[in-house]
């Protein structure tokens, strides 16, 4: 089970292309649904969101593709 795709996001006015993998965390702005931060771990991603000062943000973890079983 693996997943790999490029997510484009803007952080502090700079555009980034980030190749996310299964298990990475993505933060997106709830109103626009645009990614605003990514990270390999939850704590790193939360810290980046806090540093950005954004409030209306939701996180999710990049899932594996074709995941038909849990646990």
């Amino acid at each position, binding site marked *: *089970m693996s*997943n*790999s*795709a*490029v*997510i484009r996001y803007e952080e502090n006015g700079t555009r980034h292309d980030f190749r*996310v993998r*299964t*298990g990475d*965390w*993505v*933060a997106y702005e*709830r109103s626009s*649904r645009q990614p605003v931060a990514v990270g390999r*771990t*939850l*704590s790193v991603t*939360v810290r980046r*969101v806090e540093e950005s000062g954004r409030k209306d*943000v*939701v*996180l*999710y*973890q*990049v*899932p*594996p*593709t*074709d*995941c038909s*079983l*849990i*646990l």
Partner: protein
Amino acid sequence: MRKAEFPFQSTPCESSEAFPGRKEYVFPVVPCRLHHGKCSLPPIDFLVDSGADHCVFGGDIAEALGIDIRAGVRHSLTGVVGRKGESWVHSVKLEVVGLEKYQLRCAFVECEIPHSGLLGRLGFFDRYVVTVDLRKRVTTISR
């Protein structure tokens, strides 16, 4: 009646031989905040999973909440292929974004799970009427 609607989460993926032409992977989620003691997490999209007996979260969530996983009540889990694993049950507060906050008994696992967390039958499906509309890509919950 209290009701809320949440769009599916999606992530791009590469096409596979099994499902040629598929460019994204979509899944039903409900954004929730978890609270434990003085710790609160930002909203996280958790997978709505009617196949899960109860709510399950990963070790990184426990760590961020300041929870000592093994201090909870030990509970064995079994997956659909029969694989077994250990979990530890704790009480946290689950806040469904825009709806309500309530006490939740949920399991934490030390190993990595495929999603940040699962909203299962005990503690979620027994509280809400859940409608997953794959064509509209919307999950609706009401109670």
